[in-house]
Structures are given as C-alpha cells and as structure tokens.
C-alpha cells in the first residue's frame, strides 16, 4: 500500500514571495504519477501540477514547479510570486500506473494549509 506524508500542516507567505511545500511518499511501485491539488474554501479540488515518475525533468506550470526526487521519494511544490488567490489547502497525491486497465485511485497526503498575506 502507498502512503503520502505532508509534514507541514500550515504555512504562511507574504504576497510575491516564494513558498515550498514538502511531500514524501512510500511505494514499492516503479511506475506511478504524482499530483498536487489545490482546494480553496469553495471546496473545489483543482489540479495544480502533475509529474510522471518516468520523467526526470521536473514539471512546471506557470508559477508552480516541483522538485521530484525519485530515489528519495520526495515531491515538493514551489509556489513563486505568491498571490492572494493561492490561499488554499494543498494536497499531494499518488496514483500507481496500471498498464491494462485505465485509471486508479488517488492516495492523498494530509494537506498543507497555505495562507498568503498581503
């Protein structure tokens, strides 16, 4: 079974500054996918960024980037130039790759609450 750990329950950052959220996971799988989801007070889970484990290059999406360290089983999220709208819960999630079937369940970490201060 997979486990995902987010060790920072809460973080605050000044607007325009950079914040990094940590995520570690435990798995015996070699092929898998990692995700960061954002959940604002509206409850809607929004995909921020995703990473395929077979890709060495770190994924980036505008102000969001990851530092994927496969050997260390670490998948941190960096938010650059933080904006007030980035205030939300952030969840790291793991999904193993299934060759024949499509789709699989996500295993989530406990979440990190990010507060961007003006």
């Amino acid at each position, binding site marked *: 079974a997979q486990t995902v750990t987010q060790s920072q329950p809460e973080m605050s950052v000044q607007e325009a500054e950079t914040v990094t959220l940590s995520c570690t996971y435990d798995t015996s799988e070699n092929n898998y996918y990692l995700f960061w989801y954002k959940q604002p007070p509206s409850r809607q889970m929004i995909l921020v960024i*995703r990473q395929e484990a077979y890709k060495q290059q770190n994924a980036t999406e505008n102000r969001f980037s990851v530092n994927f360290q496969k050997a260390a089983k670490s998948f941190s999220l960096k938010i650059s130039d933080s904006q007030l709208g980035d205030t939300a819960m952030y969840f790291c999630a793991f999904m193993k790759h299934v060759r024949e079937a499509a789709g699989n369940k996500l295993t989530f970490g*406990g979440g990190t609450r990010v507060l961007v201060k003006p």
Partner: protein
Amino acid sequence: GAGVSQSPSNKVTEKGKDVELRCDPISGHTALYWYRQSLGQGLEFLIYFQGNSAPDKSGLPSDRFSAERTGGSVSTLTIQRTQQEDSAVYLCASSLGLAGGSTDTQYFGPGTRLTVL
C-alpha cells in the same frame, strides 16, 4: 456544463435516515471515483467505476455504503442508516479512463457536505 457536478451541495439529515448523493461526471469520461473528506480521516478513496467493468469497492467503510452508476454516466452514492461519523464532504471525480501509460488526471466536483445530527 463543462465540469463535474454534484448534488445536493449540502445535506443535513438525522441519524438513522438514508441519504443519496448524486454525481454527474464530465461528458465522455469513462472513469468515476468517490472520495470522502473528513476531519479525522483526511481524504479517503471510497469506490471507483471504469466503463463496464466491475467497480472497485475496496474503500467503502461498511455495508451501509453503496454506489451505482447508471448508463455509464451519472452515479449515486447511497448511505443507509446514517451515523454521526458519516458526516463529511463527499467528493466525486471523473477521468477519461486512459490506458497504456497516459496520465489519467482526475477532475473533481465541488462536493456534497453531509451533516448527520
């Protein structure tokens, strides 16, 4: 609509009553998932439907929970004889159901907040 929709948005019920929660996935998505988000347990997988295959029910916490997906589209999660510990936000997600190495991203609905008094 373009996204996953869920109804009702909020549901308050009395202990012992049955409730039904509905999920409309994104059109064309063959995979559908239910998750539960509670203060004590975080985000937990409940059940997964993929096309015409038998659903993966491995996350359902008890036999009071059941779900069906009619016509490969709309899904209903039913909780019988609700208990206070069932109070949570129930999230539905759907995905394209891609196979063969593609990332199968799940897109979430806004959730249903269930409160059992």
